[in-house]
């Protein structure tokens, strides 16, 4: 069995998991829950198989948990989807209007991601938000690189349609 120093793992890879979760969820509470769930999942994965690369595994798990949480948030109509923390909007050189526009685009993209099939959403996030290569994405998700490309293309098409529709309405 693989012996893992979880404290060292959390200290070393915690920031990247935090960034991934916070960027997708946009608020502190959900990001904290997602952070804990990610490491618990990583523990379960490490019991089943030997973990070669913790960063890739943790990023994949954090992305999957964050997307699940986004979908859950969209299913519950009472919870507002726009619950970004006000403390997280510093701007030194960006106009407030541009910042609001960027926030609206980010919120729209989160909504659109929550409506995609989970695998497409994962591939999209890993590629564009975490800059992972097709080969690495395919390896982490257990699929072929060509399949990852197809999923990414589908995700892009659906997201674009969703965003354009949202922009028109």
């Amino acid at each position, binding site marked *: 069995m693989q*012996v893992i*120093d*979880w*404290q*060292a793992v*959390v*200290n070393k890879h*915690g*920031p990247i*998991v*935090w*960034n991934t979760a*916070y*960027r*997708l969820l*946009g608020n*502190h509470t959900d*990001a*904290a829950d997602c*952070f*804990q769930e990610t*490491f*618990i999942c990583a*523990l379960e994965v490490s019991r089943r198989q030997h973990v070669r690369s913790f960063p890739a595994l943790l990023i994949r798990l954090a992305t999957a948990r964050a997307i699940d949480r986004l979908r859950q948030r969209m299913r519950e109509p009472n919870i507002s989807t726009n619950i970004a*923390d*006000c*403390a*997280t*909007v*510093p*701007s*030194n050189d*960006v106009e*407030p*209007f541009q*910042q*609001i*526009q*960027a*926030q609206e*685009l*980010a919120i*729209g*993209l*989160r909504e659109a991601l929550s409506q995609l099939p989970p695998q497409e959403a994962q591939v999209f996030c890993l590629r*564009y*938000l975490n800059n992972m290569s097709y080969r690495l994405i395919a390896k982490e998700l257990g699929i072929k690189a060509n399949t990852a490309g197809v999923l990414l293309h589908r995700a*892009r098409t659906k*997201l*674009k349609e969703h*965003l*354009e529709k949202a*922009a028109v309405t």
Partner: protein
Amino acid sequence: MEEPKDILDKAIEALANTDVPPGPPQELTEATVAKLIEAADIPQDEFKTIRFIDRIKPMKGLIKYAAAAVLLIACGYTVGRLSAPKTPDIEQLRSAIEPAIRENVLQEMGQYMQVGLASGYAQLKDELQQQYRRDLSNFAIQTLAASSTVTNQRLQELIDSINTAQTQDRQWFASSLNQIEHNRRQDKSQLAAGLETLALQTEDELQRTRQDMAQLLIYTQPDSIGVDKSNNLNNLNERNK
């Protein structure tokens, strides 16, 4: 020439550049580690022991070299101590170099203090500027959001009131049209009744006149009246001549 970005690229850029607060918080890290240890069902002490042993294991090969290095250093230190010249007169040496050292130390202290004060001032200024910009930006964002919300509410109220007024106008107009139609029908029926009455009366009058005319035609006059009538006719002829 750079191709214009579509909405998806803009959204990706916005989401990727989302400002993430530095983290994770220390409490969250500690809580996560505690949960992991609990989930792994390993006590904390055992966990630490395993970790220490685990760290020691790959270093086994290095321990020999470390021991050899320590021995070499100890030997070198001993040889150096034994072969070192006698120590000079400390008091003489101190009196010789103390003023120069003091002067140098004072100069360096002064320079350090000046540099520290200057950098502190610049840093404080920068922090204040950044804080001010951040506050101003937050205030502008909140004001914009609040004003847009209020404007939307007012517009919605205006639309509602216009709709209500239009509905009332339509209802009033429809009731007026109904009233006019009702009056028209009533007038028409009254007019028809009046015309019928008039026609009946006229017919009666015509009947009566016809009867009078018939009676007048069949009426026979006396002879005296006939002589007078012929006289009158003669007089009339003479007058005409």
